């Protein structure tokens, strides 16, 4: 029935549609080949682009296009500043109450432990470059040690027992400060190879 309505060649040869789809198919094939050739150089271009923008490739996965030295230093300070402020506040609250209010002093120490642990988690997640990572690891460990000691202090059953931890906590705090200075110096210094 349809052959009567549309008497065509027994086997259609070249049709407009055939020519069009073949041409588009060939164009697509060429574009795909070009895309694969382009994709082959992605790694080199990535490194070159980051270098041109004064970036360190291993600092890029933080969700930014590129992390430069000053950007990383700023990010590190942004991480550290609120934590330091919180720790200072908690330490002051403990100092004000360690002589006469056990419950308040305990609460201040508990808050200090929480702030310490949060800082430790943030430091662990921070994308330190390979050259700084070992130093940062030292800071994280010192921070954890201080948090553990403060937690033990917070569990003390009397004010005198609580105060007996003060000297050890001060030493742990000094260790953290030393590690912090090392990291800060490393972060502020030019990156290796830059």
């Amino acid at each position, binding site marked *: *029935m*349809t*052959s*009567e*309505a*549309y*008497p*065509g*060649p*027994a*086997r*259609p040869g070249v*049709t*407009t*549609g*055939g020519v*069009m*789809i*073949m041409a*588009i*198919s*060939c164009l*697509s*094939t060429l*574009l*795909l080949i070009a*895309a694969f050739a*382009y*994709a082959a*150089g*992605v*790694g*080199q*271009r*990535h*490194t*070159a*682009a*980051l270098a*041109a*923008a004064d*970036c360190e490739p291993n600092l*890029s996965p933080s*969700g*930014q*296009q*590129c992390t430069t030295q000053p950007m990383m230093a700023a990010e590190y300070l942004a991480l550290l500043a609120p934590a330091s402020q919180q720790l200072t506040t908690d330490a002051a609250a403990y100092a004000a109450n360690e002589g006469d209010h056990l419950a308040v002093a305990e609460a201040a120490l508990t808050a200090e432990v929480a702030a310490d642990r949060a800082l430790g988690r943030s430091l662990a997640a921070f994308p330190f470059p390979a050259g700084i990572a070992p130093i940062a690891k030292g800071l994280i460990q010192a921070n954890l040690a201080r948090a553990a000691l403060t937690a033990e202090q917070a569990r003390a059953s009397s004010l005198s027992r609580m105060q007996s931890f003060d000297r050890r906590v001060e030493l742990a705090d000094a260790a953290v400060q030393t590690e912090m200075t090392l990291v800060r110096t490393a972060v502020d210094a030019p990156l290796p190879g830059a």
Partner: protein
Amino acid sequence: MPRNTVGAQPDQSWAQDYYQPASPAGTWPAPPRAAKPTAKTAADHQPQRRTAKSRVDEWMDVDFKFGGSRIKRKAIALVLLGLPAPVPLFFMLPALLTLNSNTFAVSVDDTLGTGAEVCLFLCLLVTPMVTLTGQHWFVPLRRWYGIMMAATSIGDAVAASITDTFAGGVFGRVAGHVFELMGFFMVMLVIPIVCTSNPWAQRKLGKYWKRFQRLTYVIWGLLACHLMLLEGFGFESGNNGSGFAGDGDAIFHQRFYQYSACSLFLLTLRLPPIKRWIADRQKEGRMWLVWVTVAPIFALFLLGFVFILNEQIFKGIDSFTNNPSNE
């Protein structure tokens, strides 16, 4: 070999290209010109196509017992395939719940704009897939993706009108630049289209309904203008231009290139001569030739689409965590 006329009528070829109701094809009103007497025989017309169900369609129509009720297989498949459509809106939910204006100002355009583009392409993908596979069970997805495209793009426009930093008040924020004006026109067009994508409007509009729904193609064209004006034809060189060069594949991130790669496939399989050619090969039983020919065009579509999805996922996750990326 008799010439196959299934795809030979431009009128009917295009008739598939807009939203259709989720109900089976039987409830679909006949195309306006189908009733007119023509030189073609009755066998040429759409009913022949509709009655010929593929084996996959038949398999999808089989129902099975699920929790005390019977559900068709295709219902499950459609739900699963339709699930990704609201994801762009979901990405913006935390920012909405916390009223985080920074996330909206920085990344709502990327998250919802790209989401609307994805939904538009998926909506437009249905017709080519019907042409290629001869299956119809997934046709309801066209309507779903169309509605979600509308929801996403309207959400984008509303958020931009409130949180964008362009001067000129609300109108300046949604239409203050030419590329924004294109987006504004798209949203203005999508509203009546989505309002009439239901059986009631279809009955009321009669033969004009299909023509009206073809405005979707205008949106498709306006999207090209929107992206051209947004990013131009070039790509990033160093730190200048469009498409982020940091990962070394700036060309793949160029939005207009992505659009073009996807649109080539979507447009090609809508061209009446090509649909006729495919129908002829189907009739001859030489579908392998169709697959071989279409494969590079489809691969190019996938390449473009993967990078659009990449953009959607990464920008979306950044928005979801209220850590918006302004790349």
